[in-house]
């Protein structure tokens, strides 16, 4: 057996921390000191944080404590949070895991961040990630790889691998991530925590450095489902700064988290249990589905017939949008610049060569290709049409189901280097998560067991767009009854 790591998560959940702060049994300063201590002890090995600003975190914590004494309210007053290095926090660097933005300082807060700040959150540090959120293993960061807390020779998943590893290892109470094709759910599954990707348009993307604008969504990494529900309620809602954020009502998502699933209609898509799925993963997920049946859920087999095309569609759409979005990184307005070039175009080409890593270059080239003259209709337009078919598959399924249960990933975490030289194999690992982004629906993953080698396995719950309450209910009921996933 390899380097299996035994550790105990000593931090409270967000909900527990709020209770303790409200009751006066702890202070924000003591909580932040505890988090910083855990980071000092563990992060040398994990590299989950790209940067931690201890003095600023302690200043924010003391300010929260004194605001509390003065009677200020706030659903997260004094609670430390970790932010993926792709979301702007005013005054902090935001590198997106890239060398090209190594010195970029965010001039404003992302809306999701601003909403956490309004509730009193303390911004402790920025978590490591695959460059520009492109990757499934956190091996593509310009700031070093992130390690899986359960087994240090395995990847933590990606691209939000830093936030997932930090939460799982007890270096953070909660973290924000972003999910374009599974980048919150897959690392949550690999690290053994809860990963929520809300519906497209649920949380504003303003201040999130765009990768694929029609797929990107801010999500959460937490110890349990209740914390995910709490954070979702805080960050959701329409934002004038993001015209794709929808003006749908924001319920209190922590309401209705019961342990009863009676009469709840749950579909099991057969296409998510076919070739390539690891036997241990399948066994754990099937057992979890059985568990939900025992809690009263009405389980039925369903079909999402276009699932097998989803990775191909994702490869085209995500890279096409990325190639357009990343055109802005040219050495003119921010980031590094190659100073040797004598004309602007040469400056762009060299700056981008110098600043981007291999995966980002690969995706820019693929995206440029599928949009280029003569290929646009064959690739990009066709992919958008297949996206319609994938969306319809889900619409049909949700006529009869309140939620779907699937494995989150075909396998548990793999070793470093195993897939990094074979990008197609890496992309195929996202088969079960990209569909939710293409269809714009919501998804959450909760831990549902371990492999014999000690690596976590994730159960994915998918729900209709803007029905986050459905998936939170199933995930919470399962999590509480199965009593897995903590420590």
């Amino acid at each position, binding site marked *: 057996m390899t380097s299996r790591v035994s550790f105990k998560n000593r931090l409270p959940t967000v909900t527990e921390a709020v209770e303790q702060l409200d009751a006066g049994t702890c202070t924000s300063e003591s909580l932040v000191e505890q988090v910083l201590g855990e980071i000092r002890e563990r992060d040398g090995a994990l590299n989950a944080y790209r940067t931690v600003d201890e003095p600023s975190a302690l200043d924010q914590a003391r300010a929260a404590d004194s605001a509390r004494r003065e009677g200020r309210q706030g659903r997260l007053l004094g609670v430390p949070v970790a932010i993926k290095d792709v979301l702007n926090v005013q005054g902090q660097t935001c590198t997106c895991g890239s060398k090209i933005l190594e*010195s*970029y*300082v965010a*001039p404003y807060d992302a809306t999701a961040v601003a909403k956490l700040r309004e509730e009193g959150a303390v911004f402790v540090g920025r978590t490591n990630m695959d460059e520009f959120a492109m990757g499934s293993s956190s091996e593509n960061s310009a700031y070093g790889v992130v390690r899986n807390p359960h087994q240090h020779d395995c990847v933590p998943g990606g691209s939000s691998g830093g936030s997932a590893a930090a939460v799982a290892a007890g270096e953070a109470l909660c973290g924000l991530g972003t999910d374009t094709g599974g980048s919150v759910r897959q690392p949550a599954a690999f690290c053994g925590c809860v990963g929520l990707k809300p519906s*497209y348009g649920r949380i504003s993307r303003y201040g999130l450095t765009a990768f694929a604008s*029609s797929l990107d969504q801010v999500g959460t990494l937490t110890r349990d489902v209740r914390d995910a529900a709490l954070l979702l309620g805080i960050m959701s809602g329409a934002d*004038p700064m993001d*015209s*794709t954020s929808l003006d749908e009502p924001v319920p209190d998502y922590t309401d209705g988290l019961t342990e009863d699933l009676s009469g709840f209609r749950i579909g099991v898509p057969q296409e998510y249990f076919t070739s390539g799925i690891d036997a241990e993963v399948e066994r754990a997920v099937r057992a979890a589905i059985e568990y939900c049946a025992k809690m009263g859920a009405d389980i039925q087999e369903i079909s999402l017939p276009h699932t*097998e*095309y989803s990775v*191909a569609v994702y*490869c*085209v759409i995500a890279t096409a949008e990325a190639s357009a979005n990343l*055109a802005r990184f040219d050495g*003119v*307005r*921010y980031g*590094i*610049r190659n100073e040797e*070039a*004598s*004309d*602007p175009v*040469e*400056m762009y*080409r*060299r700056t*981008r*060569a110098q600043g*981007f890593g*291999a995966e980002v*270059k*690969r995706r*820019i*080239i*693929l995206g*440029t*290709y*599928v949009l*280029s003259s003569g290929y646009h209709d064959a*690739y990009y*337009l*066709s*992919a*958008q*049409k*297949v*996206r*319609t*078919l994938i*969306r319809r598959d889900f619409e049909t399924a949700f006529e009869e189901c309140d939620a779907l249960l699937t494995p989150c990933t075909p396998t548990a975490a793999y070793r470093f280097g195993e897939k990094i030289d*074979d*990008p*197609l194999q890496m*992309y195929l690992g996202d088969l079960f998560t990209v569909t939710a982004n*293409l*269809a*714009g629906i919501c998804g959450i993953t909760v831990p549902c067991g371990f492999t014999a080698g000690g690596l976590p396995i994730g159960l994915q719950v998918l729900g209709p*767009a803007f029905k986050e309450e459905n998936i939170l209910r199933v995930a919470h009921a399962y999590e509480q009854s199965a009593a897995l996933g903590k420590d």
Partner: protein
Amino acid sequence: MESSLVNDQNAQPGEDIDVAYVARLARLQLSDEEVATFQSQLGDIVEYVRKISELDLSGIEPTSHAHPVHNVLRKDGARDGLAHDDVMANAPSSRDGQFIVPKIVE
């Protein structure tokens, strides 16, 4: 072809992805090794992506956004933008509040 430069400029994309040509379109300088590696990796990916051509897509509308919204308007009022100095602080090269770039015209 007389020179590689002429070759590059006249290159037409063939059936398969021509990485050197597309990199030019993307304003990305690649080393010879990168071109060779990407040529093989992206060749595999493009081959895989062609799987979508198996489907009959006649009469299917494309989806550009999961929840199509159109003409999102706001009140036509003045608002503060970001502080000019904060924005310019990230510039690799600037003077008098403006970005400096290499000379464009002689």
